[in-house]
């Protein structure tokens, strides 16, 4: 039995790292702008298509495309917040929800129009390469995704902790007026945050592409898990999102092992319900005085 459990856990961790990356973007935007970004899943899907097209048209490997896609989606996220979400919501939270929901509908249907609803995958030579990790064999792309996701999470942490921008983001998150009076441009900071959050899903997309499929609806599979991750980790907590993402990946893998592959995600939503019942502030609620 143990011979199956350990590989399942390791495989779960690799999936969980990608969940964490998607959730990091979501929790950053929530934690700072205090908005639920309903377009998050659609942006993930859009990034998957961008990486796919770069692969099909230019023959770019998804990993090589990663910096390009990340840069493009950072800019897209910045512009979306600055000129769409902020402009059309007039600063009212209910409007922000509607605007991000509208964005997701537009992006989803745009993808449906451009790419049809066919399921697509990329062909990469290393898709079935295996790496021996202790007692288990893990597909190479999953190991890459795991390592890269942790590195990106680490970079994000460094930016938030040790840069001027990071300090400004954390300041704006909790004390907007105080930040404004220090001369911090709140709208610019919000947009930077939205850009970074969107860059996170773009990175996740490039890491997923070698082992996953793309359809215009693919975002939903991840965004629901991402919402669960964000709640489990404590809304707005970056460290919490990382740990919760890894945890949910493992829960999913173990449920898949014991209940059958198709029931794997049941564990994620069971964990979600249990969290809401017993730790509604999340397992690792951020320490805010």
């Amino acid at each position, binding site marked *: 039995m143990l011979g199956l459990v350990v590989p399942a856990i390791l495989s779960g961790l690799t999936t969980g790292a990608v969940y964490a990356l998607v959730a990091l973007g979501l929790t950053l935007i929530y934690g700072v702008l205090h908005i639920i970004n309903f377009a998050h899943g659609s942006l993930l899907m859009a990034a998957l298509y961008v990486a796919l097209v770069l692969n099909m048209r230019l023959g770019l490997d998804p990993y090589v495309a990663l910096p390009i896609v990340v840069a493009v989606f950072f800019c897209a996220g910045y512009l979306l917040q600055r000129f769409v979400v902020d402009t059309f919501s007039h600063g009212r939270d209910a409007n922000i929800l509607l605007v991000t929901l509208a964005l997701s509908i537009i992006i989803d249907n745009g993808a449906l129009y451009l790419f049809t609803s066919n399921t697509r995958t990329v062909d990469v030579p290393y898709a079935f390469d295996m790496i021996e990790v202790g007692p288990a064999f893990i597909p190479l792309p999953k190991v890459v995704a795991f390592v890269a996701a942790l590195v990106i999470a680490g970079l994000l942490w460094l930016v938030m902790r040790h840069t001027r921008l990071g300090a400004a983001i954390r300041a704006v998150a909790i004390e907007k007026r*105080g930040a*404004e009076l220090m001369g*911090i441009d709140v709208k610019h900071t919000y947009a930077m945050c939205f850009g970074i959050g969107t860059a996170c899903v773009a990175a996740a997309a490039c890491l997923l592409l070698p082992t996953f499929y793309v359809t215009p609806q693919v975002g939903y599979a991840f965004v629901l898990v991402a919402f669960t991750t964000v709640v489990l980790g404590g809304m707005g907590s970056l460290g919490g999102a990382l740990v919760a993402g890894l945890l949910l990946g493992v829960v999913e893998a173990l449920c898949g092992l014991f209940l059958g592959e198709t029931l794997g995600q049941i564990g994620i939503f069971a964990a979600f319900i249990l969290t809401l019942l017993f730790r509604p502030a999340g397992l690792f609620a*951020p320490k805010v*005085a």
Partner: protein
Amino acid sequence: MLEISGLKAGYGPVTILHDIAMSIEAGEIVAVLGSNGVGKTTLNNVISGIIKPRAGTLRFDGQDITGKRPRDIVAMGLAQVPEGRKIFPNLTVRENLELGAFRRAGRNRARNFERMCTIFPRLRERLKQRAGTLSGGEQQMLAIGRGLMSEPKLVILDEPSLGLSPLLVEEMFSLIQTINRDGLAVLLVEQNVVQSLAISKRTYVLEQGRFAIVGQSADVLNDPKLRQTYLGL
């Protein structure tokens, strides 16, 4: 240094400030006194660019700042230490101070940081602590230190003595004199009438969005209307 004339401001359909005119010279402590809800904070927020005025002009350091954005006003050297402190509770004391130099005086950040630790020795002991864990008095010190990190030419202090113990209030007023001694102009917005009059050169008493009494602080202290309304004499 700061000249305001014909200023009108408000929120939505409500006009809070009517025809305000005032000035602050370089190196002066000027007090704006008034009870709750007369428009003191609105006046500060108009000066700092948070609220756009409906009419009138504001000039700072020879330039028209009417309708300018908060960050441009900070960059020109006009800082505000807001009512309720508005420090960043989730950031450390050090980070709070450093963000004070976000828009201005960034190059002198280390030097000013050291200066703030000298003026406020209590803060030096707590540099790594989250600002939200400080006592009320320490938070007020931090808010003032953060405001001074941008090397302002004029600082607005909005009710710095609010919520402090009588002993700390004394300390706060002597501190305001200390920072003014180096030539920094201070706009002191307060409810604490006696002590504000004692340390300021000139005073404006705000009532219902209009200046009711204006003059040298020594004269304002002897104004019968002020003595009756604010001191109960």
